[in-house]
């Protein structure tokens, strides 16, 4: 209890099972994790291990079965803008322009606290943060996949979230675009100091971005297998890091976890 102030986001013995008729499938079992304010946490694991389910639990899009999830001491049981999500497939509304997509979020969150002009400035400021002001009037169908993901990040940031949740946001992008966006996220994290939780299956991405890497065991009934501190000082530069001993060591231990101790067995059942 004396540690209370540092428990910004507290995941306490959370289990999640899905019921389909009489069949109960336990997806996550006994997840315990505490995340500090301003921390960048990567969650890595093989596909199907329930890492997206864990993110949905934090977002409030799915309810926990047992256990508790608290943000600043308050229980999370519904989705809300203070836990904004950057979705895997951008989830921009195709009938709205880039500007209007961000505006939808800003109008909803700041309608009572910001004037119309302030809201406009805030939208443009967030688009500027991801370098997308030039495409403000374009529709999502008219810009590239990387740009759409940038707008998704701008929309999430514009809600001024306490925790920014990123659900494999760069999974569908090519390597070069992904590197650009990783740099953009690092830059934003450095400037705003947001608490960020990112789901990924890319070991390099996890090590490059995170303060801590949470490694998940394989499902069903997946849990946290190991947590690795990445003590590499920021700002981090991907080229200098490539041969950095700490980086190489961190990368190696994640790889060991994923491919030696918790090797992915397809069609386990």
């Amino acid at each position, binding site marked *: 209890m004396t540690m209370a102030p540092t428990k910004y986001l507290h995941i306490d013995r959370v289990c999640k099972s899905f019921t389909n008729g009489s069949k109960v499938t336990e997806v996550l079992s006994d997840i315990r994790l505490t995340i500090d304010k301003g921390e960048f946490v990567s969650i890595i694991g093989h596909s199907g291990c329930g890492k997206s389910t864990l993110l949905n639990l934090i*977002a*409030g*899009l799915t309810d926990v079965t047992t256990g508790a999830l608290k943000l600043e001491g308050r229980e999370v049981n*519904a*989705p*809300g*803008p203070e*836990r*904004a*999500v950057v*979705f895997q*497939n951008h*989830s921009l*509304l*195709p*009938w709205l322009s880039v500007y209007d997509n961000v505006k*939808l*979020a800003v109008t*909803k*969150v700041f309608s009572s606290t910001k004037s119309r002009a302030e809201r406009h400035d805030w939208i443009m400021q967030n688009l500027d943060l991801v370098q997308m002001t030039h495409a403000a009037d374009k*529709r999502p*169908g008219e810009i590239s996949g990387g740009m759409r993901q940038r707008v998704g990040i701008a929309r999430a940031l514009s*809600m001024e979230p306490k925790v920014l949740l990123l659900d494999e946001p760069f999974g569908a992008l090519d390597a070069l675009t992904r590197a650009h966006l990783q740099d953009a996220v690092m830059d934003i994290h450095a400037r705003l100091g947001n608490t960020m939780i990112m789901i990924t299956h890319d070991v390099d991405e996890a090590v490059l971005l995170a303060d801590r890497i949470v490694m998940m065991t394989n499902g069903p009934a997946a849990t946290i297998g190991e947590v690795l501190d990445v003590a590499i000082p920021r700002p981090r530069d991907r080229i200098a890091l490539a041969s950095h001993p700490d980086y190489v060591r961190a990368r190696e231990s994640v790889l060991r976890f994923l491919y030696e101790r918790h090797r992915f067995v397809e069609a386990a059942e």
Partner: protein
Amino acid sequence: MSVVALKKTAPPAKQATAEVLPLPVTARSGQWLRKSVSGFGAAVLPPLVVLFVLLAIWQIAFSGPNAGLPTPTKVWAESSELILDPFFVYGSQDIGLGWRVLTSLERVAYGFGLAAVAGVLMGALIGQSALMMRGFDPIFQVLRTVPPLAWLPISLAAFMDSRPSAIFVIFITAIWPIIINTAAGVRAIPQDYRNVAAVLRLNQIEFFWKIMVPSAAPYIFSGLRIGVGLSWLAIVAAEMLTGGVGIGFFIWDAWNSSRLTDIIVALIYIGVTGFVLDRLVGWIGSVVSRGTAT
């Protein structure tokens, strides 16, 4: 008609070939003109030819002395005034078919307008809940097959007045495809959009206007398009009981005074109007749901 038009255009073409030759610019514009003319011809000529052939078959088939139906030439001879002047007014009951169509369209506008609003709202409600869908869908599937004429006695008994019952018949005929399509469109809203709405904490009304309507717009408009077609189909049934000056009642009236040629002209009016209505709703749909089509 078409023979006359051809004769008229033939002589000037001879003059043109003599003068235009040396100028490349006019040659290009001539080419463009020829292209657009041939494009126009490709679109208009086939239906004209088919129409002409059908009219010819009709003419031959009913030329006998004991034929039950009038031939096209007889229709023209007896009812050409109805075709040539759609907007004459000789008395409160004796007006051109254009006016009658407009009167009927007003009735359809009420019935269809109500059906559109109620249908979209009902469809949204049912599409949102799997339980409601399971409960209502079989009933709708049965009711939608009831022909407009069958609703007539029921609506007369319920409203005890011809005007609201006529509008109700149009309403009840048009509403089913609107409900069913809207519900399907709402069910097809991607989970991603629902997640976005949940994170933003959009309330029901905001969700309806900002996510549901634009996302389901293509479905809604295909429902509206079928609905407007059906409501126009119901106009004859509806006006058989209202009387007055509508195009539907005109047919009923013409039948009672055995003016068969007038009925044929009225059918053409109804067909063309229905075609225009269908294209109009389709066009509005493509304009409104631009962007979501991708």
